[in-house]
């Protein structure tokens, strides 16, 4: 009995320790199930890399080499005792780059075959036809060619301003606005949750505002009870308000127009908390049309990235209409983006 | 005619000797234009039985319009002379090379060059040259003699060249 209690106690302590220190394992079954795949034998490699004398062609690599015994990867998820080197402000979202610089390299470099312009660097070619107007207008952001320093910049000095869309300003392009963060009238984000729920967030620092990774249980705790009683309903969203949300997500929806996933329409469900942030694991695939399993998955992942990236510190939705937008089903239809 | 050719030939040979670059020949009547074997500019142009005479005095090539393999009237004159020469000099065999300009895809140009070479062959046969003495080969766009990317060059590259290939008996 006593022993049992001890064991139980130890086990519990262990669990707690894991919960605290190893808190990173959220839903991922992280624990290193390294799949063992030996691809190429040394002989093959040796052969392959034979000196490049004309007649010396290496043997084709054929047989996979003997699989190495799966090395148990060092198990201990080292306590994340990392010093917070960069006191990342609670708003880690740097400016997403919906309107990334578009170096000019038309698909058909129509006029002259300007070979030199074909940069050896990854050239994000300009979206041509299917460019959404809204994005086009934001193209002001001239971050061309400055990725590296740019990134650094963003990293160290996370921008405080949100680029939220002014709710009613449908006609206005979504400007990466330099305006100060707007204080939300309602929706006091319950900050302490992250700590309260040890199995949730793999964040070393209590990041009250970082909601993207809050898991479902947390979501419930948060959105459910909290929202229910005082969730304001309000009138349905105006066309402008819907449009603003649409535009906000569009900015982060990156369509691989040459990929098979661009043949797929996916509908993704999600729940938002009162601050407009996506609740934990509430993002889910509801429906899809076209494509095979893999392309559907790919399309879904792209949609999920769009939703999670562009929420920043919450979608800008009228707090007084919370019940209208608590649950959202978003359909991502790439038809107009697709290469014709 | 033949005097003029001679004149050009001499100039051409000088140019060849000077710069050792066949592309500098300017594509007049001079230059063998041959990519394959052939026996070069052997003998003297003044010797009507010589290869040199065939190349320069008779004229070893005919030109074609874009994407065509029809022998032009001018080409017929040249080929009539070739046929006469070949009949008189029965020791020679010939390989007829068909060429195309660069403005075409590789495979198509091979087929087109083959058509041109064959058109010349058939013409010569129709003028009495034994078919057993004539082979054809296509080079497509692989062996231009002119390298500019203009019609003036293309026109000279769209050609069929009759390359004498030595005695019948070897």
């Amino acid at each position, binding site marked *: 009995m006593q022993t049992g209690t001890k064991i139980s106690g130890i086990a519990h302590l262990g669990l707690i320790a894991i919960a605290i220190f190893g808190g990173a394992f959220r839903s991922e079954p992280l624990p290193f199930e390294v799949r063992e795949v030996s691809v190429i034998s040394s002989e093959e490699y040796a052969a392959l890399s034979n000196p490049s004398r004309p007649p010396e062609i290496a043997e084709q690599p054929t047989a996979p080499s003997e699989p190495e015994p799966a090395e148990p990867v060092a198990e201990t998820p080292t306590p994340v005792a990392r010093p917070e080197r960069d006191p990342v402000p609670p708003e880690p979202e740097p400016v997403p780059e919906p309107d990334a610089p578009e170096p000019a390299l038309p*698909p058909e470099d129509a006029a002259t075959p300007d070979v030199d312009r074909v940069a050896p660097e990854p050239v994000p070619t300009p979206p041509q036809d299917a460019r959404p107007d809204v994005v086009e207008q934001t193209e002001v952001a001239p971050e061309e060619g400055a990725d590296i320093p740019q990134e650094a910049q963003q990293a160290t000095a996370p921008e405080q301003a949100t680029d939220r869309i002014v709710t009613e300003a449908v006609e206005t392009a979504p400007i990466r606005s330099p305006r100060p963060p707007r204080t939300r009238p309602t929706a006091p984000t319950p900050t302490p949750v992250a700590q309260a729920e040890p199995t949730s967030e793999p964040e070393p620092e209590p990041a009250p505002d970082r909601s993207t990774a809050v898991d479902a249980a947390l979501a419930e705790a948060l959105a459910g009870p909290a929202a229910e009683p005082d*969730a304001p309903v309000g009138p349905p969203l105006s066309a402008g308000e819907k449009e603003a949300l649409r535009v906000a997500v569009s900015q982060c929806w990156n369509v691989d127009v040459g990929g098979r996933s661009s043949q797929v329409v996916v509908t993704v469900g999600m729940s938002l908390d009162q601050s407009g942030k996506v609740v934990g694991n509430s993002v889910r695939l509801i429906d899809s049309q076209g494509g095979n399993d893999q392309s559907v998955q790919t399309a879904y992942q792209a949609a999920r990235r769009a939703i999670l990236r562009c929420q920043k510190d919450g979608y800008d939705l009228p707090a007084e209409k919370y019940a209208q937008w608590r649950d959202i089903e978003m359909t991502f239809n790439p038809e107009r983006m697709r290469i014709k | 005619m033949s005097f003029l050719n001679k004149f050009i030939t001499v100039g051409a040979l000088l140019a060849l000797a000077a710069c050792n670059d066949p592309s500098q020949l300017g594509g007049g009547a001079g230059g063998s234009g041959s990519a394959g074997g052939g026996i070069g500019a052997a003998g003297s142009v003044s010797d009507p039985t010589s290869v040199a005479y065939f190349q320069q005095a008779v004229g070893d090539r005919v030109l074609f319009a874009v994407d065509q393999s029809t022998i032009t009237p001018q080409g017929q004159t040249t080929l009539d002379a070739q046929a006469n020469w070949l009949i008189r000099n029965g020791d020679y065999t010939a390989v007829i090379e068909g060429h195309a300009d660069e403005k075409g895809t590789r495979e198509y140009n091979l087929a087109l060059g083959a058509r041109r070479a064959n058109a010349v062959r058939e013409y010569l046969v129709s003028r009495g040259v034994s078919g057993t003495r004539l082979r054809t080969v296509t080079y497509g766009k692989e062996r231009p003699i002119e390298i500019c990317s203009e019609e003036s060059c293309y026109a000279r590259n769209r050609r069929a060249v009759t390359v004498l290939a030595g005695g019948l008996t070897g």
Partner: protein
Amino acid sequence: MKKILASLLLGATLFSSPLAAQDGPLRIEITEGVIEPLPFAVPGFVPESPAAASQAEQLTRVIAADLTGTGLFREITADAHIGQITDFSAPIQYADWKAINAQALITGSVGVSGNRVTVRFRVWDVFSGAELGSGLQFVGSTDGWRRMAHKVADQVYSRITGEGGYFDSRVVFVSETGPKDDRRKRLAIMDYDGANVQYLTDSSSIVLAPRFSPRGDKVLYTSYESGFPHIHVLDVGNVQQRVLEQSEGTMSFAPRFAPDGQTVVYSLEQGGNTDLYTLDLASGNRTRLTNAPSIETAPSYSPDGAQIVFESDRSGNQQLYVMPARGGEARRISFGQGRYGTPVWSPRGDMIAFTKQNNGRFHIGVMRVDGSEERLLTASFLDEGPTWAPNGRVLMFARETQGAAGRSSLYSVDISGRNLRPVRTPDGGSDPSWSPLQQ
């Protein structure tokens, strides 16, 4: 349900109109997005010992180059990283990577023992806080580290784009030196990215249009070794070559393997007329597929081996046709302005790439196999001879520049028409043929 009810009630009280309330979830349709490279971070793979440090660094660089080379990804370089990966097994601090807007994160480790190198890696979807796929380990010899890097990159590419990979592949092509009127050609083989070039023939005779076998172990090509164009086959492993088709008085060219690797389709010229034939490699039997006075050439099989697309000028100029693989009635599929040649069926089976000539310009284009949805991807003085990446997503082709100093070199382009980029080769290059993905 309760929520909705509550909403209804609340809505009713507030606005005295029950209809004003939302019925079910808010529905939004997104039809516009952006087209931009996805930012990723690949912090240097963690060396498991000091000896592995340089390998780890090299591997990481090749992985990053593979990904960025697609035009679909953009690397956020190490100097911008907030987080560092010093332990492959440590939990991911997503916040660090979100902060620099890395949407995908690739972590890995490299161990070296003797001449064996072990690479482990994982791919993370940063904003979802989830791993994409699961950890994977490759083992090989240190000499083959580039292939290991390509394999890792193929995995990453696949997990994010949903497409098959293509980095661990090779290209056989014609290496060219010399001016236009004295061009020397020889066969060469290289990694898809231009690394590890090796020469398969010398330049003593013209060689043209090498084509890989379905398994990548053999290469068909046209050689003038005999003084006339004939089809040869070369074993990539030992570089032994032999003549495949050299019938007296004929010329043969434009060979391509059938997907079964047992049959070769090609053009045979006889008496000025070019038609399509097949050659059964086992029996040596030759079968005539077309019999027309027009030019029939540049045949290419559908991936299922049932059909052949080829070009013919039977209509008066070069156009594309599809016919059954055993011959028979051909259906024209190209109807646009200009001339169409060098059709190549995509490995996915859904498209045909071609060269198009129109108004004095050359284009690489793609169309559906029925000829619909034609799209031109490039334009230049002379673009020619597309070949498909093993995943059917990217095309490589040759571009020749204009004028006396004109030179041919290799380019690749995404089938979206984006990401046109040169493929570096030591000399000029033409007639590329992409291998299947290596095993």
